[in-house]
C-alpha cells in the first residue's frame, strides 16, 4: 500500500495537523490553556431573537442549509447542526416553538435526533413533536418555495439560517424581511453572502460558521479546536509568505514540497 503521488506531503501534514489539534483540544479540556474568543457580532443576537419570538408567541424557523452530510459540504452542515443544538436549547429555555426545515434527506435523521436530545436534556421532551423537524423536498427550489410559504403563513418571528446556501438565499432572506422577522444568517457560501448582508439583520461570515458552535456553547473541546484553527491559519500565512519570498528569489523549493 502506497500513497498516490501528490498526497505525500498532504498526508503527513494531515497527520501532523490532526495530532496538533488533538493536543490543543486536550490542553483546553484539562484546563491547561484558557481560550477566550473575540466577539462575533451577531451570534448573541440569536438568543435575543428567540426571546422576542416568545414575547410575540410566534415560532422560530431554523434551516441547517442546503448542504448534505456526504460529499464536500459535510463540515458546513455539521457546523450548522451545532448551531441548531444551541437554538434548540434556547427554544427550550424560552418555551418558544421551533420549526426546523430540511432539504437533504440524509440530514433529516441527524437533525431530528439532535433536536430531540436537546429537548430531553433540557427536561422539555414534550416540546418535541413530529413536525418540529420537517423534511420538505430535496429539490432546492421546491424546498425554498415551501419555506417561503411556511414563513409567510406562520409569520415566524425569528429566522435563523446556518450552513451552506445557494442561489435561493435571497428568496429566503427576502421572505423573512417582508414579514419582519429578525434574521440571522451564518454561512461560508461566498456567492450568497452579499444577499444575506443586504436582507438579514445579522450575517456571520465564512469561518465564523465553524467557530459558532464553540462560541455559543463555550465547550472546552470546541474551544480547543478553535485555537488549533488559529494556529493552522498562522502556519498558512507563514507558508504563503515564505513561498512567495522564495519564488521571488528564484527558488520553487516550497512549492515543489507542497505538491509532493
Amino acid at each position, binding site marked *: *500500500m*502506497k*500513497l*498516490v503521488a501528490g498526497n505525500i506531503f*498532504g*498526508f503527513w501534514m494531515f497527520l501532523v*495537523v490532526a495530532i496538533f*489539534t*488533538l493536543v490543543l*483540544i486536550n490542553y483546553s479540556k484539562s484546563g491547561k490553556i484558557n481560550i477566550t474568543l473575540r466577539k462575533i457580532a451577531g451570534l448573541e443576537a440569536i438568543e435575543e431573537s428567540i426571546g422576542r419570538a416568545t414575547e410575540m408567541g410566534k415560532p422560530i424557523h431554523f434551516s441547517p442549509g442546503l448542504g448534505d452530510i*456526504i460529499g464536500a459540504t*459535510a*463540515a458546513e452542515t*455539521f*457546523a450548522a*447542526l*451545532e448551531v441548531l443544538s444551541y437554538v434548540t436549547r434556547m427554544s427550550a429555555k424560552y418555551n418558544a416553538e421551533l420549526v426546523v426545515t*430540511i432539504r437533504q*434527506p*440524509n440530514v*433529516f*435523521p441527524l*437533525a431530528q*435526533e*439532535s433536536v430531540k436530545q*436537546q429537548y*430531553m436534556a433540557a427536561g422539555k421532551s414534550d416540546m418535541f413533536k*413530529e*413536525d418540529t*423537524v*420537517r*423534511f420538505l423536498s*430535496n*429539490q432546492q*427550489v421546491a424546498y*425554498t418555495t415551501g419555506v417561503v410559504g411556511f414563513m409567510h*403563513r406562520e409569520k415566524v418571528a425569528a429566522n435563523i439560517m446556518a450552513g451552506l446556501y445557494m*442561489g*435561493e438565499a*435571497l*428568496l429566503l432572506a*427576502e421572505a423573512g424581511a417582508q414579514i419582519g422577522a429578525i434574521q440571522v444568517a451564518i454561512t*461560508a457560501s*461566498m456567492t450568497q453572502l452579499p444577499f444575506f448582508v*443586504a*436582507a438579514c439583520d445579522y450575517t456571520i461570515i*465564512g*469561518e465564523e*460558521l*465553524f*467557530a459558532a*458552535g464553540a462560541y455559543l456553547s463555550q465547550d472546552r*473541546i*470546541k474551544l480547543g*479546536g*478553535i485555537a*488549533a*484553527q488559529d494556529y*493552522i491559519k498562522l502556519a*498558512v500565512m507563514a507558508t504563503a509568505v515564505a513561498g512567495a519570498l522564495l519564488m521571488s528569489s528564484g527558488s520553487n523549493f516550497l512549492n515543489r514540497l507542497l505538491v509532493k
Partner: protein
Amino acid sequence: MRKEVPLVITFVVAIIVMLSAITTGPIPGTSIAISDLFRQHISPWMTIVSAFAVGLASVNLLRVHTRAIARKRNDWIYSVILIVTLAIYAGFRTYVELNLSNATAAANYALIFNNILTPLSAAMWALLAFYVASASYRAFRARSAEATVLLISAIVVMLGAAPVGALIWSRFPDVQRWLLEVPNMTGQRGILIGAAIGGFVTSLRVLLGMERGHLGSAD
C-alpha cells in the same frame, strides 16, 4: 455498546473513504486495495442507505400533512394537494425506474416532469430577479465605508458584465476583470482557506466522536 458501535462505524468508514482516495496497492497482509473496498462496497452502500433516507424523510413529510388533514387544520386542503401529487409522482417515477425499457412510460413521465415541475421551478427562481431589484433599492445603501466599498464594486462589475457597460466606458470590462481576478480572488481565497480549516477541525471532532449530538446521548 449502544454508544460505541456508531462511533466505531463512523471512524472505520471515514478512514476507509479517506485512504481510498490517496492510496494504491493492497492493504498489507491482504489482497484488497482500499480504493477497491471503497469502489465496490462503501460507495454503492452509501447510494443505497441514502435512498432509504429519502424514504424516511418522505414518511415525515406524509405524517406532517396527514396530521394536518386529520385535525382539519386551516388550509388542510393544501395538504391533500401535496399528498396526492406526491403519490402520483412517486408512483409513476417508481414504475419508470423499475421498467427502464418501457420508453413510452419514460416519455410520458418526462411530459409531466418537464411541463409541470420545470415551469414551477423556473418561475420561483425568476422571483429572485425581482428581489434583487427591490433589495438594490432598499438595502444597498452607502450606510458605512464598508457598505460603500461593496456598492461600488458591485456597480463596476454590473457595468462590466452587461454589453451596455462597454458602450458607456470601453474599459469597464477590463476593470471588471481586474476586480474579479485580483481583489475578488484574494478575498475568496482567504475565505476559502479559513472555511476549509474550520471544516477540517469540525470534521476531525466528528471523526473522533467528540461531536455527536446527531448520535444522541447515552440512553
